[in-house]
């Protein structure tokens, strides 16, 4: 009981420091929340400006997806760029683990561009022919070994097992 009271007082202290925290925790407990859903497609100029402000973008930067039934409402079209992997490692991000600043708009396909996923690659270290040569060398080497050792099996030095059958005589080594 005392542990429960202690954790309750901890929650009280935390919510006194940051009142938004409690709302945030409660909102995150739900698997889906209407607050995360983008609004309807902006039609008037006023709506556009309101939507741009909502996503912390300048009105001239704000560009929603086309409203053709496959769009994302008023969610802005921001590309994945070169992928999170190519963002600067040493910039002091607000969320360094995902290399994102506070309220920085993220792409609809953000899950595709996260650091363990797709990124527009740098120039490869070696030329394409070198990679091809390495591939052919390893595969060819393996295949050559395989075909060369095809008839050179490891086996135990024993004769075939003897099974009794009609017309077959087997002998021991005793007299």
């Amino acid at each position, binding site marked *: 009981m005392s542990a429960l009271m202690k954790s309750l007082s901890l929650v009280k202290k935390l919510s006194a420091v940051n009142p938004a925290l409690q709302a945030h925790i409660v909102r995150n407990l739900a698997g889906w929340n209407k607050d995360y859903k983008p609004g309807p497609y902006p039609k008037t100029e006023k709506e556009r400006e309101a939507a741009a402000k909502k996503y912390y973008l300048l009105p001239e930067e704000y560009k929603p997806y086309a409203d053709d039934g496959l769009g994302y409402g008023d969610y802005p079209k921001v590309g994945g760029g070169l992928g999170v992997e190519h963002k600067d490692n040493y910039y002091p991000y607000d969320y360094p683990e995902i290399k994102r600043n506070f309220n920085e708009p993220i792409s609809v396909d953000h899950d595709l561009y996260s650091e363990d996923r797709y990124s527009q690659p740098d120039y490869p270290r070696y030329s394409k022919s070198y990679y091809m040569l390495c591939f052919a060398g390893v595969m060819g080497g393996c295949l050559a070994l395989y075909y060369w050792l095809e008839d050179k099996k490891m086996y135990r*030095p024993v004769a075939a097992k003897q099974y009794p059958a009609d017309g077959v005589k087997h002998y021991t080594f005793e007299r």
Partner: protein
Amino acid sequence: MGNALNHYLKPDVTPGPDVVPSFDPMLGFASRKERVMIATEEEMVSAKLTPKERDYCAHKLLAYRGCRAEKFPFVYQCAHEKHDYLTCEYEDYVLRMKEFERERRLLERQKRLDKQG
């Protein structure tokens, strides 16, 4: 496994895997004891022995299986039957090793004789 290397270096005098002896089994022997199959076909069929198990130790396997069926769940009482069967299989394997070595030596002897003409 020097035999695998020898099979590559001296393929003419090294028998391959699971070789069936090609020489006369009585060559070099005055008399040689014949192996006897004790378990009968009917016994092996009724005990549903797999083809692999129908070797010269089948009667000991039958004794062991019968003991297990009789003594279950106190199967530790069949330790002697099990040991008997496994020893028989071991000796069968040793016989196979001897047959391989005999084949190898006879091949070498044949080669030597052929060279002499």
